[in-house]
């Protein structure tokens, strides 16, 4: 039951993150939303792996890898956004500028 709650929480987080990712225009907020989706997926996977009582270490390893990958991607994305800001004084993509 507890695990189910956390699993559903993960599903909800994915939904919230997807909403924010599609809705927000500011690029940093999209990076943020990306991280929310990522952690939602990890939570979902982790909860699914914990249903048998004893935790399954394989998802844990996958999730740690996933967190590192997400952090790498976020760092590159942030650096890109800053470089873009420097070059064009904009925090959004050209097509999203009001």
């Amino acid at each position, binding site marked *: 039951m*507890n695990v189910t709650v956390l699993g559903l929480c993960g599903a909800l987080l994915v939904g919230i993150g997807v909403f*924010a990712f599609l809705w927000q225009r500011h690029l940093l907020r999209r990076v943020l939303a990306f991280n929310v989706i990522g952690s939602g997926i990890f939570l979902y996977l982790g909860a699914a792996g914990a*249903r048998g009582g004893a935790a*399954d270490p394989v998802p844990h390893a996958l999730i740690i890898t996933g967190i590192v990958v997400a952090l790498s991607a976020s760092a590159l994305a942030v650096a890109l956004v800053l470089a873009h800001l420097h070059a064009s004084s904009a925090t959004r993509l050209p097509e999203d500028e009001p």
Partner: protein
Amino acid sequence: MTLAFDLVLCAMIVGAAICAAVAGTIFAAAVFFIVYGIFVSLAWLRLDAFDVALAEAAMGAGLTGILLLRALGRMPASEDRPGPALAPALAGAGLALALGWAFLALPESAGLGPVVRNAAPGAGAENPVTAVLLAFRAWDTLLETIVLLAALLGVWALSRDEAWGLPPGLPQRVRPDGVLAGFGRILPPIGAVVGVYLVWAGTSRPGGAFQGGTVLAAVALLVSMAGLAQAPRVTSGALRLVLVAGPLVFLGMAFIGAVLSLWQPGAAFLALPEAHAKSLILGIELMLTLSIAVTLAALVAGPPEDRA
């Protein structure tokens, strides 16, 4: 009682996530994200995933938060005007519902837990997560360290040509006797001990190269933010050697296995000889930690910049 806790925890996580998604300013959203990361690492504890909780605390809440805050410091305060909400909301809700349904529809657990636990001692690590990371799925882990390297190369490539060759990030200016500097003197030794401990403990207990490396990266960033030490230039050979040392040693060991396999039946690419597996794993982990720490610190610090 535990259910109540879990329900409250989920409510807090979801609340923080929603606030991060819809907060009026990006700064508030970033703070919500940091808070969110803390809650999520609590959730990992509830799932008996201590290694993941450590990773989430260190990376999700810690380093990502620092990354976002630093980026915000470089940005003009701008109004957030999101696009139309209906379609994103429908997409998000639809996906969440589908995933929720799927979670309930999943069959009884079908994991590899027992298999891993049986095989873990033979792999040289009592902590099954470490066994998965460094033995069974070592190829993933190797690629993952390469992903870090790729991200860093990408970040460095974004420097302006005039700034190329300077140290990562902006030069920091700090009052020598100020709080910041003092802070930077007290915390790093403690942080370093914690980081190394996490790596050392990682083979048998929760922890490992990534968690330890992240803590050390945070320490390095603090030292830099407190202006106590100047980071080496991005062109520095020593820095670059440290960056690649982990993956290089990892790959080197892997290739030794591949070459040995030509005449030794048990050996294979990415296989560690069973007799020395434990010490080799520790050795690889230490090298990886070093590289991960430096790479992460450099990633968060950003491309080299001049003050122009």
